[in-house]
């Protein structure tokens, strides 16, 4: 074997300079080829940062727990305990009700917001003087089938609300300041245009990925795109949604709770009559209270703690001295 040539300082520096030049050229070419916009295919639109805050000054930390089997009755009781619907909806308001219409399944399965509750809430908003009430969701399944078969669509229309089904033009990219998941992500913002009040209405359900589907998870239905990716980090996503969406009021329907096999269920034996409806202005507290209907503690649902740490509310719902009423 031929012995290696001696390596002097000059040769070393020459080789080092050559290697450096090679790296610089490769990096430079990569930089030229880099497309910061990503592939074409979507309209290029500047992402909005955050969503409007719909919470009302002076109503923070209100919480009511109403017990009874009849949803329309318990909703009325809970709202009265919170100061009446008039505390949240004033004459001329334009109200958006975000329901859970995720699945094209019948009301008896309790996988979606119950149509009786939708009807009554729309009716109460109009009774308080709302100029318009809109009901929307971006369901998992085909939207038209979901709203029709869940009974939500007919109930909303019967009460006089407008139904907005998601379509491509209603989504705009939104980023959450400081968020790590909701960044330049399509959000169903179209129905929010001109809205002055936002109310979330969700059923109490077990959820295979997140442990529970309550009012915070309900905001997942505002997301578009390939949102199932977020299931890999669902707790963080729900916590980010809790920061992104600041509603006027949330209503959690635990009249019948889906105890197992959520979020779709399928069998009546997955359900239990828990005869409780929770309403409030702190969605984290409402969900912490609702978790108990599923036999869970806030610590069992990591998204609750994460939402609290992010400043979206408190898991210690008893500290809010909830008003407890029953039929």
């Amino acid at each position, binding site marked *: 074997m031929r012995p290696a040539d001696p390596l002097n300082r000059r040769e070393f520096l020459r080789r080092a300079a050559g290697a450096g030049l090679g790296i610089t050229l490769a990096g430079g070419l990569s930089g030229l080829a880099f497309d910061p916009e990503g592939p*074409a295919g979507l309209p290029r639109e500047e992402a909005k940062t955050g969503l409007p805050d719909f919470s009302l000054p002076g109503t923070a930390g209100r919480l009511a727990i109403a017990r009874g089997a009849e949803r329309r009755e318990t909703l009325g009781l809970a709202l009265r305990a919170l100061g009446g619907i008039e505390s949240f909806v004033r004459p001329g308001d334009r109200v958006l009700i975000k329901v859970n219409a995720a699945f094209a399944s019948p009301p*008896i399965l309790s996988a979606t917001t119950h149509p009786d509750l939708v009807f009554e809430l729309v009716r109460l908003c109009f009774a308080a003087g709302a100029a318009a009430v809109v009901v929307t969701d971006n369901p998992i399944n085909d939207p038209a089938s979901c709203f029709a078969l869940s009974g939500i669509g007919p109930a909303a229309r019967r009460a006089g609300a407008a139904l907005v089904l998601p379509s491509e033009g209603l989504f705009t990219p939104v980023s959450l300041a400081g968020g790590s998941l909701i960044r330049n992500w399509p959000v169903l913002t179209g129905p929010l245009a001109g809205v002055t009040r936002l109310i979330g209405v969700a059923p109490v359900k077990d959820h295979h990925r997140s442990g529970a589907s309550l009012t915070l998870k309900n905001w997942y239905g505002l997301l578009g795109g390939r949102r199932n990716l977020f299931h890999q980090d669902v707790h963080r996503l729900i916590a980010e949604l809790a920061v992104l969406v600041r509603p006027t009021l949330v209503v959690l329907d635990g009249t019948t709770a889906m105890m197992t096999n959520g979020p779709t269920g399928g*069998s009546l034996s997955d359900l239990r009559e828990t005869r409780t409806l929770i309403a409030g202005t702190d969605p984290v507290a409402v969900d912490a209270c609702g978790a108990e209907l599923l036999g869970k503690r806030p610590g069992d649902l990591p998204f609750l703690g994460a939402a609290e740490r992010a400043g979206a509310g408190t898991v210690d719902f008893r500290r809010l001295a909830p008003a407890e009423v029953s039929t």
Partner: protein
Amino acid sequence: MSVAVHPAAPQRPSRRESAIAAALMALLALIAVAVLREQKRPHPAVENFLYARALAAAARAPEPAALFAPPEGTRALTAPERFDRDSLSDKIDGKAELYLSAGFVRLDCQRLALEGDEDAWIEVFLYEMGSFENAFSVFSAQRRADAAALDVAEFAYAAENAFFFVHGTRYVELIASGAGEPFTRAMRAIARALTAERPAGRPAWTERELFPAAGLIPESLGRVAADAFGLAGLDRVYRATYRTEAGEAMLFFTRRESAAEAQALARAYLEMLRAFGAAIAPAEGLEGASRIEVLDTFEVVFTRGPFFAGAREAADPRLALDLARRLDERLAEAGHAPR
């Protein structure tokens, strides 16, 4: 000055060279970490482009033929739908992971209406799981506690408004929009039509024979496809609950590729429980087995040849030991190598 390299005695790099080399390696490592970190984040533009392309492809795909001929008294209410591994969550959202981890291949579904009542319908879900074992996994994972017996298949049960059963490599759900005799009658007709359309014999499933017969609660028989008992990697686990005079407890086993793999899994299981504060000691009366006390319950776990097995959730340590010994005997009778 020259940095001489003697051919017979390789030159050691100078400190400066070593430092430069280390800095370059560290820089490369940093770049690799940054690339990996960025890759892990879903890029909205890319993801939504792929999603839009998938939707466009789905829209171009021809509509599949009817799933099967609707039986008498029913008619197709909606067109059939098909979902694959990428789109399953578009149908069942967060429950998709349960199926995906069990080997899901595709889902076909369709709604059938009952003749004469527009609001009365049944949705048929046909989950193709690729094997009987996979189908049985998702069937047993979701089995409802107060289920009623159903004779449409060997593994089947009925709820007030639904039928659930395994047919060949499929897991089938029939979910009605209401409860009552007309729905039950229609679901039975649909189940008959489905099983007649694609006959499937009794599954060749030898694992269940390994469970001791006495005391076994038949409907408790199950298979956990992945992450059994909270341990990542503990998959393909068969389990069954036993009712005895001393109380109830679970027996489980999983067959691995080798005895060494079974032993490694057993060690990982014990480590996990130890981290949760379990008290672990040798189980007297079953050679090589471990006795575990955790959260006021007792377990006895062991390996036999390629099997990792044991008894769990016993309120009495003697019950756990007794059941574990009976399972060990069955595994031995079945001709598996001693530990």
